[in-house]
């Protein structure tokens, strides 16, 4: 709302986040320029000032060229960059950039497809003139020099005119007086280079001085309600609550584990975060003598992501599977594989509102029709457990802006439906009852868990507020803590998630606050509660200059009050309140004390915004363009074509998981969602009001692709990839435009919303069947935004003939001979 420009890329915000989009509309009304970069002209584009169509998978080239535009034109916010980023860090002589390594950085091992980052570590010297040839700023300049508007045209299909319009707008809407925000969603993340897209945007925003300031930032729109919450208190295999890493087998002690987390900055207080977590989980059983039960935590020895797990199921390594609010038979990439995998389980528990495809695959899946699966030969015992919806239970949502909002129960769930909390709690209770008296070491962790929550009503519903209080944390006297600053590493405090500490400060459920914006300041701190410490903008120390003064009156947010000797402003300062701007840390200081008074990025070990990332990323210290795993183009920038570290899974005879070539699969296919439906359709295809609004699966094609392939609007098309073939109605639309790539010809892109499956009021083929198992190496997210396909008019074959069609294409593509 306070932005002068909003660039929405990799997101269809109006369709997928319509409620949040009201603030974009409001910003536009206040004069902001709205730019939408997307392969399709969507409902977001309809309200944007400028829509620029692009090729899926070219985002690093586009963003990198914007960086190049900023650096080569001297448009960076120099004072901000020098003071607040690691631009001045000098890199070692051994460091080899992708610029000199044909697209690879120093330390690459082709055998393991991974990097050793030893040569990426800064020397410790800094050059505040930013002129040293090995300083990050100069390395950045060289690295991005080849990201030119011409290459943007070749890789993205964006004309130099459109590109320069965007670049000029960005530059004019950044600086002391103005700010630009970027908005992305899964259009950036669901790629083998997903993390690199966000990294490139982060570099751009740091160079333009748009981080930590009102109207700036990079907004990560999440997939659905409380997905932010499910990473904060994670359902991820490699994280503990509050972004603490999951222990590894070699973390033989708590001390050893802590050495993996930085000592300086706010991660320096790591011991208090972890020990308080262990105290929350294991209570009195956690003592200094037994390492606070650290040994009871699971260890991860490698990739246990969802795709690896599914392949393990196929190989018979996994017996049972719980699905809570997830419908992989429709919603996960390679949905066909997901169904084949579930057919190999001994048992499967599906908790959902209705009998979704993942609970019905054994009798009603495409594989039953093709004969690949036979109901009487599937040994999986499926338990369908009806779940309560969000209006049938109390609890919090944590949304995109890190804000927790409490929702009250509106009505009782029907019949046997129960809340997730009820199920987890009572399941735990029953397991613990079964294990009572066990002396086995492996059961000790479960038996030591604090597992007592007040129950109410006939159904013995556990109190969600009691769980939130545990998450908030308590002191030795049982008092609810006011924030994470109170946490101790000696076992005297307990806290279920350090970043959420304070959400129940003063014994008040801060997340349930609903003071209207008309009755409070424009930052609206009394609506819900945002982590950490109710800060609405992270790293907001950067909204003031190094001396602690706002960069401009227009963008004043927090500042140093010299008289009072503290930081103050419109928001809760994201900085130690009493640390003056000229504070210089003692040599060798640890924790927050190691950061200076002008180091705003307090979660970084050096307090600086990371233009160059020397540790923590699998795919290089600087973003580098690689083609998607399946692409009709070769890399226009480097010899290295696709991501050297992307994770693809070994092919299995049943998986059809190899990647298809562009000769047989000439078109780009991308998948997405519609306003009218919710993800895999379990909450929308089952409701008449929503089902009727988008009743059938369709593909969106340009008029010229329709002409090329003889597709008719409203008719049927069959879409074929190396994995599967599906049918969809045809929507011929001028909103999808072919891209003319100089020297390459025309790129046609086909759009497919992925909501349909075999159950519900409206049914259709499952788009995710088309996609391979290939993932980003950092976060294991699948590349579901881009693949290659063919399309032809008419419905797909039925029965075994469907498999024949897929195989015919595979043979033509040479995929079957590869065996």
């Amino acid at each position, binding site marked *: 709302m306070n932005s002068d420009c909003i660039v929405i890329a990799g997101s269809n915000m109006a*369709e997928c986040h*319509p*409620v949040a*989009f*009201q603030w974009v*509309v409001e910003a536009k*009304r206040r004069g902001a320029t709205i730019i939408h970069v997307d392969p399709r*002209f969507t*409902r977001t*584009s*309809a*309200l944007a000032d*400028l*829509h*620029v169509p692009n090729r899926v998978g070219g985002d690093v080239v586009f963003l990198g060229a914007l960086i190049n535009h900023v650096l080569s034109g001297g448009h960076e916010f120099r004072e901000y960059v020098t003071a607040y980023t690691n631009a001045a860090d000098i890199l070692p002589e051994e460091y080899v950039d992708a610029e000199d390594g044909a697209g690879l950085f120093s330390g690459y091992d082709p055998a393991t497809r991974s990097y050793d980052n030893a040569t990426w570590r800064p020397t410790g010297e800094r050059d505040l003139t930013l002129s040293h040839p090995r300083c990050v700023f100069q390395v950045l300049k060289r690295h991005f020099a080849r990201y030119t508007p011409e290459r943007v045209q070749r890789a993205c299909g964006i*004309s130099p*005119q*459109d590109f320069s*319009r965007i670049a000029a707008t960005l530059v004019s809407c950044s600086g002391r007086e103005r700010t630009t925000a970027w908005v992305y969603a899964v259009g950036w993340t669901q790629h083998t280079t997903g993390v690199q897209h966000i990294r490139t945007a982060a570099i751009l925003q740091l160079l333009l001085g748009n981080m930590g300031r009102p109207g700036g930032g990079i907004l990560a729109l999440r997939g659905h309600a409380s997905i932010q919450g499910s990473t904060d208190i994670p359902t991820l295999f490699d994280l503990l609550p509050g972004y603490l890493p999951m222990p590894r087998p070699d973390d033989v002690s708590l001390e050893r584990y802590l050495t993996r987390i930085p000592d300086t900055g706010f991660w320096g207080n790591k011991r208090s975060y972890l020990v308080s977590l262990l105290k929350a989980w294991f209570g009195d059983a956690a003592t200094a003598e037994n390492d606070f039960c650290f040994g009871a935590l699971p260890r991860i020895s490698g990739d246990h992501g969802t795709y690896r797990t599914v392949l393990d199921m196929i190989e018979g390594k996994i017996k049972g599977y719980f699905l809570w609010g997830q419908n992989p038979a429709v919603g996960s990439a390679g949905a066909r594989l997901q169904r084949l995998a579930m057919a190999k389980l001994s048992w499967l528990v599906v908790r959902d509102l209705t009998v979704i495809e993942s609970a019905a695959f054994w009798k009603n899946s495409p594989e039953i029709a093709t004969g690949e699966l036979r109901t009487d030969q599937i040994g999986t015992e499926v338990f369908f457990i009806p779940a309560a919806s969000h209006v049938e239970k109390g609890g919090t949502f944590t949304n995109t802006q890190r804000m927790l909002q409490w929702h009250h129960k509106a009505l009782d769930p029907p019949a046997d439906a129960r809340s997730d909390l009820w199920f987890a709690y009572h399941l735990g209770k029953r397991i613990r009852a079964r294990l009572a008296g066990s002396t086995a070491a492996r059961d000790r962790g479960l038996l030591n868990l604090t597992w007592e929550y007040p129950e109410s009503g006939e159904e013995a519903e556990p109190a969600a507020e009691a769980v939130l209080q545990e998450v908030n944390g308590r002191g030795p006297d049982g008092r609810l803590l006011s924030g994470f600053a109170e946490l101790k590493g000696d076992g005297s405090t307990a806290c279920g998630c350090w970043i959420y500490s304070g959400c129940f400060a003063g014994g008040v459920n801060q997340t349930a606050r609903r003071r209207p914006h008309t009755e409070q300041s424009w930052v609206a701190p009394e609506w819900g509660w945002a982590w950490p410490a109710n800060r609405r903008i992270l790293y907001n120390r950067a909204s003031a200059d190094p001396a602690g003064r706002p960069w401009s009156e227009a963008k004043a947010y927090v500042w140093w009050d010299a008289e009072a000797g503290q930081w103050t402003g419109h928001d809760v300062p994201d900085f130690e309140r009493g640390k003056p701007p000229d504070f210089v840390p003692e040599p060798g200081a640890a924790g927050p004390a190691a950061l200076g008074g002008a180091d705003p990025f307090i979660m970084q070990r050096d307090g600086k915004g990371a233009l160059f990332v020397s540790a923590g990323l699998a795919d290089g210290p600087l973003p580098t363009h690689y083609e998607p795993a399946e692409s009709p183009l070769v890399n226009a920038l480097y010899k290295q074509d696709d991501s050297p570290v992307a994770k693809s899974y070994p092919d299995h005879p049943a998986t059809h998981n190899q990647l298809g070539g562009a000769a047989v699969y000439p078109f780009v296919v991308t998948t997405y969602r*519609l*306003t*009218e439906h919710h993800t895999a359709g379990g909450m929308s295809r089952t409701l*008449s*009001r*929503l*089902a*009727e*609004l*988008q*009743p*059938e699966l*369709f593909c969106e094609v*340009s*008029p*010229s*692709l*329709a*002409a*090329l*392939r*003889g*597709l*008719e*609007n*409203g008719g049927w098309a069959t879409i074929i990839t190396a994995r599967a073939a599906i049918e969809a*109605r*045809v*929507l*011929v*639309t*001028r*909103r999808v*435009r*072919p891209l*003319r790539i100089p020297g390459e*010809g*025309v790129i*046609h892109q086909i759009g497919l919303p992925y909501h349909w499956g075999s159950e519900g*009021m*409206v049914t259709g083929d499952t788009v995710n069947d088309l996609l391979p198992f290939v993932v980003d190496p950092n976060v294991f997210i699948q590349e579901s935004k881009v693949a290659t396909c063919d399309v032809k008019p008419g419905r797909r074959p039925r029965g075994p003939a469907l498999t024949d069609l897929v195989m015919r294409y595979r043979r033509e593509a040479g995929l079957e001979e590869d065996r």
Partner: protein
Amino acid sequence: MKHQASVASRLYGRLDDVSGEAGYAEHPPRVGFFTDTSVCIGCKACEVACKEWNALPDPDAGVLKLSGESYDNTSALGASSWRHVAFIEQGPLDAGAPAAGGLSPADVLGPALAGLASPDSVAPATRWLMASDVCKHCTHAACLDVCPTGALVRTEFGTVIVQSDVCNGCAYCVSACPFGVIDRREDDGRAWKCTMCYDRLRGGMEPACAKACPTDSIQFGPLDELRVTAAARVQELHASGVTDARLYGADPDDGIGGAGAFFLLLDEPEVYGLPPNPVVTTKDLPAMWKWAGGAAALLVAGVAAAFAGRRP
């Protein structure tokens, strides 16, 4: 205060106190919808909220088919669809690949509506217009004027509603509506349309569609205030270069005496499927009665003359 109106203003022309004219001595201010299509994101929350609140019948699951008309699968206002979001795609057809199958892009899409873009053109002017249509709650509502049973009435809020327990299904209203809004349900034969959530208004709440609209494209309030807001919005858009913006149904001197639900459009009304100059179909009722009366008199005279002429 009893409002005095001539026969002409009861059926046509400016009428400032429509509720007073309908006989409400004391009444709240006339309320309405201002639908600003320039901020509509086509989310259809209005359609869903309307159907939920008013408990409109479910569609028959067996007949749910993609319309092929952009993202519009509701297609029109009807007896069980009281809000309808229209989607209009505009812009050049692409000039991408040469046609191979003998079809040209224009063949696939129908006759070309715009010239082909040159492949080198910069950011072609593609537009996707979205507009949530609804009953206009006309100042001069022909549906109400023609209703023989009194099922259609003017409320104290100045809106027009059907009393379903009085409707006999004659469908005079259906043919009388200049916008094609009101419609009969096939199963019970009665006529149905938007009530502007009369029950919610009675309870001091805004209509469900306006409540659900995330971008305030649908605004609800006293009609006088909405007209002021709308005029300012048009000026704002004109100032920012959106010169196509215009109001539809906001003029109390138009053919229906101004609509209770009016719109800000970005193109000609016909583009949205709206009649360009709607006129209340009962406008000429007095004249028609006069002619009909004359004809009847002539008939009587003729019959009399015939009888008279039979006498030898």
